[in-house]
């Protein structure tokens, strides 16, 4: 009860704060650039994320050109790539590695972490828990600008003469520590580390805000058990981020020491470039442990928000409550906890103690159980629904399909004995691009289509959305499904070409198919871009609640201003999934409708709550 009272007063304190703000109108700079409004910051994250997604996508098409058409003459790219092309018009092998590295870094961190969490945690947390803004608008603003700064540094690193970091997105030392080993480990790597340090600061500032807001600024009646699954997902994601990103920071810091100050945390017994280095006693394996202690939770940092968004969209568009709300929350909690104890499944064949491998096999396969539960719950939510295929719904169904297809291959890779052969082959590439990359990307797309009306007050075009979805959905499958076959055949990752080996001489046809599909998929994103940009300005005006949804953000005006609700913040009386309730007049009852107004559809225990309601809120 004490907590309840506290949150009540906190809301009111913030209430006044919000009203204060309405009195002074900011200029262009304070409204759009250095804004402290969570909705503007969310859009800043979204647009920066989209630019990065485009860059990351173009990089991937560049290296797919090399892999799919190894004989092609790419001199027509000379104006863009310049010296990174060999005189024969091929991509330089070192630049190829840089492309792979930057594609991974950009997609994992800048698009699917900042672009996804940054956008939707910022946009939805205050709107869905019923708050005027984030707990600290200033910290929130800083979070974006640290990300912007980090983006600038990473972007600059693409254009330096020694090239960007090229040791893989996992930056394993000694390769990433020694410029003698690869030119990208010179200035490029320094910029990578600086950029990541800034990124981690941004991520922590954001996460602290998300957690604080969810705990303290929920509106009256919004107990944790009434939170939409989106908020649960963002909340748990933020907790994972706070616990794991500092470890990456530590790993990066020690790497900086090794690179610049002659320490030997990760280096030992190295003979390179005709000389024996003085470093002794360090361990490259230590770095891998530290890196994956972030790296694995990072997978869930990327995935959980997408799953949260999907839960919301599938329930809304099936016109059904999400099946097993408690099981959904429980499985996310379980996944969040387990995500911290499975990291070494990335390291089965690194020479780590095999006994450790046994433990991590066990823990890794356990995490498959809550993941399976989530899939079953999504499928059951569709059962006997009344499904409306909005573009957001299409992308959500696509996500579940990818999550299933890619998740199932995790059962192979998590089993250390099977992983021996599959580790670092295209099987792994297929696995994580489906389960984490494409699934999260689809979650992000679903979110954009679903909340665009609340973000910009206008509607996106549905038909272009359908076209975008079908091209992307089929495209993604054509890109990543064939990679399973290529991987089972043993083709290693990060290979510039496989022609050196007889064992890997086949599959030129599949590789070409993958590359063509990648180009088509990337092109399809321009349909989305057009749809997005055009409709920000010219789209049909959106109704306040276009999808007949139950959550609080749809009770705000068409284009919510600073403070989100012009009047009082609505009070919450029910869970967010009262869709198609038997007896109800409409097929949805929003969270702010008290049970006393819906006697026709109340369940017995809900009638009991009416008494409590009246105790809480005098009529």
């Amino acid at each position: 009860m004490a907590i309840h009272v506290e949150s009540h007063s906190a809301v009111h304190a913030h209430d006044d704060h919000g009203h204060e703000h309405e009195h002074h109108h900011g200029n262009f700079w304070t409204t759009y650039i250095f804004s402290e409004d969570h909705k503007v910051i969310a859009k800043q994250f979204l647009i920066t994320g989209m630019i990065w997604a485009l860059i990351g996508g173009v990089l991937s098409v560049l290296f797919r050109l090399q892999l799919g058409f190894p004989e092609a003459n790419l001199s027509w790219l000379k104006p863009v790539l310049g010296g990174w092309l060999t005189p024969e018009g091929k991509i330089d092998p070192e630049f190829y590695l840089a492309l792979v590295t930057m594609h991974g870094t950009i997609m994992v961190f800048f698009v699917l972490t900042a672009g996804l969490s940054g956008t939707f945690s910022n946009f939805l947390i205050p709107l869905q828990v019923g708050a005027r803004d984030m707990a600290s608008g200033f910290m929130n603003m800083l979070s974006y600008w640290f990300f912007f700064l980090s983006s600038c540094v990473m972007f600059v690193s693409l254009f330096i003469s020694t090239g960007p970091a090229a040791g893989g997105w996992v930056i394993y030392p000694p390769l990433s520590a020694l410029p003698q080993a690869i030119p990208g480990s010179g200035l490029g790597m320094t910029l990578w580390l600086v950029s990541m340090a800034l990124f981690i600061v941004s991520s922590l500032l954001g996460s602290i805000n998300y957690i604080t807001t969810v705990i303290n600024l929920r509106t009256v009646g919004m107990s944790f058990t009434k939170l939409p699954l989106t908020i649960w997902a963002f909340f748990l994601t933020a907790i994972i981020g706070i616990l794991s990103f500092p470890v990456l920071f530590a790993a990066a810091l020690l790497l900086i020491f090794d690179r610049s100050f002659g320490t030997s945390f990760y280096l030992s017994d190295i003979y390179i470039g005709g000389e024996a280095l003085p470093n002794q006693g360090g361990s490259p394996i230590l770095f891998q442990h530290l890196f994956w202690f972030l790296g694995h939770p990072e997978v869930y940092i990327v995935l959980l928000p997408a799953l949260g968004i999907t839960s919301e969209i599938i329930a809304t568009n099936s016109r059904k409550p999400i099946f097993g709300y408690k099981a959904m929350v429980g499985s996310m909690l379980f996944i969040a906890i387990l995500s911290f104890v499975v990291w070494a499944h990335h390291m089965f064949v690194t020479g780590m103690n095999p006994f450790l491998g046994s433990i991590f096999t066990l823990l890794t396969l356990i995490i498959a159980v809550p993941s399976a539960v989530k899939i079953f719950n999504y499928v059951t939510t569709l059962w006997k629904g009344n499904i409306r295929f909005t573009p957001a719904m299409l992308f959500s169904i696509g996500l579940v399909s990818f999550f299933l297809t890619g998740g199932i291959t995790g059962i192979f890779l998590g089993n250390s004995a099977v992983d021996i052969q599959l580790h670092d082959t295209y099987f792994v590439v297929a696995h994580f691009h489906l389960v984490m990359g494409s699934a999260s990307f689809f979650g992000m797309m679903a979110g954009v289509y679903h909340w665009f009306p609340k973000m910009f007050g206008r509607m996106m075009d549905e038909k272009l959305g359908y076209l975008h979805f079908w091209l992307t959905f089929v495209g993604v499958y054509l890109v990543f499904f064939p990679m399973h076959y290529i991987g089972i055949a043993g083709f290693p990752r990060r290979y510039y070409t496989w022609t050196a080996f007889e064992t890997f001489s086949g599959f030129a046809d599949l590789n070409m198919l993958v590359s063509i599909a990648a180009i088509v998929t990337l092109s399809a994103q321009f349909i989305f871009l057009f749809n997005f940009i055009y409709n920000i300005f010219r789209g049909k005006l959106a109704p306040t609640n276009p999808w007949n949804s139950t959550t609080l953000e749809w009770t705000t005006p068409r284009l919510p201003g600073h403070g989100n609700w012009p009047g009082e913040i609505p009070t919450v009386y029910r869970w967010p999934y009262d869709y198609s309730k038997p007896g109800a007049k409409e097929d949805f009852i929003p969270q702010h409708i008290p049970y006393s107004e819906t006697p026709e559809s109340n369940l017995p225990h809900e009638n009991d709550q009416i008494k409590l309601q009246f105790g809480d809120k005098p009529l």
Partner: protein
Amino acid sequence: MNWIIGLGVVLVLAILYMIFRIGSLVEVVRGKKDEPFSMSWNNINAYLFMAFMIFGLVGFFWYSWEHYGTYEPAVASVHGAVTDNLFWVTMWITVAAFSVIFVVMFWFTFTYRYDKNRKAEFFADNHKLEITWTVIPAIVLALLIFKGLRAWNDITGPASKDAEVIEVVGQQWLWMTRYPGVKDKELGKHNYKLIDAANEFGLDLTDKNSFDDFKSLEMHIPVGREVLLKIRAKDVLHSVFLPHFRVKMDAVPGMQTQFKFTATMTTAQMREKLNNPNFNYEMACTEICGRGHFSMKFPVVVDTEEDYQKWLSSQEAWLKQNPDYLKYVPAELKEAAMIKAGIPLDNLTTVQTASN
């Protein structure tokens, strides 16, 4: 060329824009603009999902069936047969689960598409169902874990005493192997600080076990006998990958790693089996290591025991190939070193004078 591509892109965009404009104009004329969403499109999407499910599954099964038996490189090791078996057991289980869920999901998507005369069922919870689909995957996974861990423990367990020890060293961007030599069958010590242009292994010549060690640019292994690879790297991480033997282990600077396996088929037998007289076993690198990562090919030959012994005794000790390095051998061991390395003893005096 650039112009053509640029023009093409502009044209495609223009066409898309026109379609989009015409589409919305037609809608305005029909007065449909205010409808929340279009029923016909809803049905089209539902049918497309059904088509996707059917074509997707048919494509998957057709391609998999068409190429069945040709996916993995032919297996040629004892533990490889075990892990392959585990792989296929996992495959059958997961493909069955995948197909069922995939079909059910898209079937629901299709069947329960919007119909304004129907109301969705308010179905929020069912503990029995939830417990069932938590417990069943848990049991299946437990079986896979059990099977997997048994295989893993066998594979990573200690090698037998009479295993053939071979050292594999990775560097940018080639592999080298070092054999312990037929006389002492022990690898000599090494130290990275002793590495130079000729002494690529950093052989420590004060250790008498190093005298008969020899280098080979081709890995020969005997069939049917356990081989223990001792793996290290000189500069950055590399990873030993022997696709046919299902062997993979990182090469780490500063830390020795190892992997034991038993080959089951000689190169000749495999050539016969695959009906490919040019077949060769290969070793590759699977840990990103720089510019030449994709080119670290190392030939591997599996011999019959007899051929293997013959090959072993035909190899020259490293010390014999680099007699200058005798000067690093302590004086009292010099004679033993020459005998072990197979250097004619009449050179002893000359060498001694030279080093004095």
